[in-house]
């Protein structure tokens, strides 16, 4: 009974971490490197949509067919390229993941963090007189 539980736990952990391990392994095999600038978007208030022009640059050790995605949205695809860059508009209230896909599998990823100047108010924030 004990061994059975242990196996189930192992399978569960494998199911959770398998996709990221797969991405890491794929990226390591293909030697794809992805960078985004800026890495942080600053908004005035926590919870507000943050806007930023992001440049994503990637390079690999060999020509590849790759697609750049922001979350689930495909931004641009390349065929048999070894390096490229793409500028896009980021607009989100929380952090977003930029992913490079090869044959629909993630091979590299980067995070655009969203920070803010003012935390969301504990009480309803009233405006000041002008």
């Amino acid at each position, binding site marked *: 009974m004990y061994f059975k539980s242990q196996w189930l736990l192992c399978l569960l952990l494998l199911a959770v971490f398998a996709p990221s391990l797969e991405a890491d392994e794929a990226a390591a095999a293909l030697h794809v490197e992805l960078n985004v600038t800026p890495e*942080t978007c*600053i*908004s*005035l208030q926590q919870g507000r949509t*943050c*806007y*930023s022009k992001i440049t994503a640059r990637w390079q690999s050790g060999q020509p590849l067919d790759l697609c750049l995605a922001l979350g689930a949205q495909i931004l641009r695809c390349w065929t048999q390229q070894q390096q490229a860059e793409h500028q896009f508009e980021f607009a989100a209230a929380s952090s977003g993941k930029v992913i490079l896909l090869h044959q629909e599998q993630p091979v590299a990823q980067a995070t655009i963090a969203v*920070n*803010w*100047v*003012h935390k969301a*108010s*504990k*009480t309803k924030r*009233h*405006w*000041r*007189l*002008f």
Partner: protein
Amino acid sequence: MQRVTAWLAGLCLFLCFAAAAAEEHNGHWSDGLDGTIYLGLGKGYQRTLVPGLEKELDQGLLLVLTGDLRWGNFFIETPIHRSGSYIYSASIGYRFYQHQAHSWDFIASNYNIWLPENKPSSASPQLDGLATRYGDTVQSFRYQYQYRQHMFGVEAGIDLVRHRGAIARLSYSYLLPWRNLDLYLNTAMTFESAKVVDYYYGVRPEEVRADRPQYSADAGVKNHLGITAIYPLAENWQVDGSIGVNLFSHSYLDSPLVTRSHEQVAIVMVRYVF
């Protein structure tokens, strides 16, 4: 400096009040305390109605502590979004009614400032020999209504210490967000009774000179038009700028102390947000 001291004293008074009230409710004093404190460094430009009064704002860099704190129904606030007034003014108040977008407050705030009390009235030849005019503290009732990006305000009160005059103000502000930038379009109309205008712009018998006849002012109206922009720089850092113009009625403009037709104000400040 005196304004900074007054603001700090107000802050201490506010926190003491909060602590005492919290003790009564068996809670920690900081429970329910909300708001923001800003430490700003910047530069200001001002062209006042009376030449010479702008020297305080124009000289060197400005290091300013401002804030917006609330504890229960008590609050203390500085005009972070406003232009056309002086950056050191602050309001301390009690919100006794709040229902959805409507609110009623009792506030004590500063509407007028002359030269700082510790400076002689000799910032310009035009001010030479004038008695000190002190900044006022007006106790007033304020009504505010917020509808989406619009903000309406009406307030009226009286100063009990300096000029003992009445002041009423009608204001409107529109928030125009564009990407990460907040733009506030502001306008206000302020009515000041004869006691107020005469206290600051009147010329008393002992102040009369060959080029400065005696002047007794009537009640007057001043209008403000301004724009304030706020932009995030980094986590806890922002830059903001304001430009504004103040227009005055004849009771101000007819004063022998006044040689200009209007006031201009511009302030740019980088602030750390606590």
